[in-house]
C-alpha cells in the first residue's frame, strides 16, 4: 500500500502544537511507517504540494499571508485538521480583536518604542482587521482543541485518520487542555 501524504502547517500560533507533535517521540516512527511528511516547518519544502491527504494546521488566521496559505492548503488537502486552540477558537491571538487593528499596531510599534517608532511594512504580511479561527475562513474536517493538545491526543487523532477512521476527541481533550 502506498503511503499517505501528511503535512503540518504553522499559521498564527506559538509553535507549541508543533512541539507537542514532536513530543510523539518514538511514535513518530510509527507515523512515518504509514505516511510521508511532505510539507512542514520541520522539513525543507517551500511550496505546499498538491494531493495532500492530511494537513495538521496550527494557528489562527491573522494576516494576509495566513489567509493565502490556508486557502492553498484547503484546495490541495483531503482532510484538513484544526490543531490546537489557536486554530480552533483563535485563542490568544484573538485577544487583539477587541481593539481596532491600528490601536494594536500603535501600541506595539509606536507607543512602547524609543528607537525608530513606526509600523513595519516591508517584508512582513499585512495583518487582518480581525483574527479568525480557521473554520470561519475555510471548511475544516477535524477539530483538536487544546493548548496545546497533548502528544497522546495528537497521536490518537493522527493514527485514527491514517486508518481511515474519524477520531472521537471530546473524551480526550477540550478548550484550554
Amino acid at each position, binding site marked *: 500500500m502506498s503511503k499517505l501524504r501528511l503535512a503540518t502547517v504553522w499559521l498564527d500560533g506559538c509553535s507549541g502544537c508543533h512541539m507537542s507533535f514532536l513530543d510523539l517521540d518514538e511514535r513518530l516512527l510509527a507515523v512515518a511507517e504509514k505516511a510521508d511528511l511532505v510539507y512542514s516547518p520541520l522539513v525543507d519544502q517551500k511550496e505546499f504540494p498538491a494531493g495532500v491527504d492530511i494537513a495538521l494546521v496550527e494557528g489562527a488566521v491573522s494576516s494576509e499571508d495566513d489567509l493565502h496559505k490556508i486557502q492553498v492548503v484547503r484546495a490541495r488537502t483531503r482532510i484538513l485538521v*484544526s490543531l490546537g*486552540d489557536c486554530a*480552533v*477558537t*483563535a*485563542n*490568544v491571538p*484573538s*485577544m487583539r*480583536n*477587541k*481593539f481596532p487593528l491600528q490601536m494594536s499596531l500603535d501600541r506595539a510599534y509606536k507607543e512602547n518604542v524609543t528607537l525608530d517608532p513606526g509600523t513595519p511594512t516591508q517584508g512582513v504580511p499585512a495583518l487582518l482587521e*480581525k483574527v479568525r*479561527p480557521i*473554520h*470561519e475562513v475555510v471548511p*475544516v474536517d477535524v*477539530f*483538536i*482543541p487544546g*493548548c496545546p493538545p497533548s502528544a497522546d491526543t495528537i497521536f490518537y487523532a493522527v493514527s485514527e485518520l491514517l486508518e481511515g477512521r474519524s477520531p472521537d*476527541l*471530546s473524551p480526550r481533550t*477540550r*478548550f*484550554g487542555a
Partner: protein
Amino acid sequence: MIRASTIKTLKIDDRDFSARHDETILDVARQNGIFIPKICDLKGLSPVGACRLCLVEVKGSNRLLPACSTLVEEGMEVTTTTERLQRYRRNILELLFTERNHVCSVCVSNGHCELQTLAQKLDITHVHFRYRYPNLDVDASHDRFSVDHNRCILCSRCVRVCDEIEGAHTWDFMGRGIESLVITDLAEPWGTSETCTGCGKCVHVCPTGALFEKGKSVAEMLKRREFLPYLTQMREEHS
C-alpha cells in the same frame, strides 16, 4: 419548621420515581444519577431558569420546560435526552462562548470551569457561530477580588448569593439582552462599594473565571461551594 409534604410519582426517561411535591425535575434527576446539563442553577440558591441548558421534554406540554425550575407533578412523563434537546443545548453553550471573550488557555479558571467542562461533556470541539469579540472591562478595584466581564455568562448566581445568602445585594444587572452586565451597587467600582462585606461568596459560586480572587494566576482559581447547602439548611432550621 416541618411542612407537610405530599409524594408525587413521575417517570423520567421511562423510569419510575417518587418525589416530594416541592422538588424540581432537576432535583429528582440529580438524586438518581440522571445527567441534565445546567449552569445557572446552584443548590442553595433560588432557581431562575436563566440559562435554559436544562430544558427537558414533558409529555403533554408543547413547550420545553427548564428542569431546574419546574416542580414535579403527579403522572409527569419527562424525557431528558433527545436529538433536538442535545442540539439546543449545544447551541446555547456555543453562543455563550461567542458572546464574550473566552480564552481558556490563559484563564484563571482553566481546568476548573463549569462552562468549559460542560462544553466537553456535550461534545463541543468547536463553535459553529461567529465570535463577537466584544470590548469588555475588568474591574480590579476591590482589594481582594476582580470581575472580568469577558468571562461572565450572566447566570446571576453572584446576584442571588449576595442577595439571598449574604443579604448585601451588592450585585445586580444593568442593560438588556446581549448588552447586559453584572454591576456592583449603582454601577460603581467594586472597590468603593458601600454594601459589599467582602465575604467572597459571589466569587465562589461563579461558575466561570468571571469572578476570582486576586493573586490567582492561570488555572489556579478553585471554587469552594460546600458552604452553601449548610448555610441554607441552618437558616431553614432557625426560621
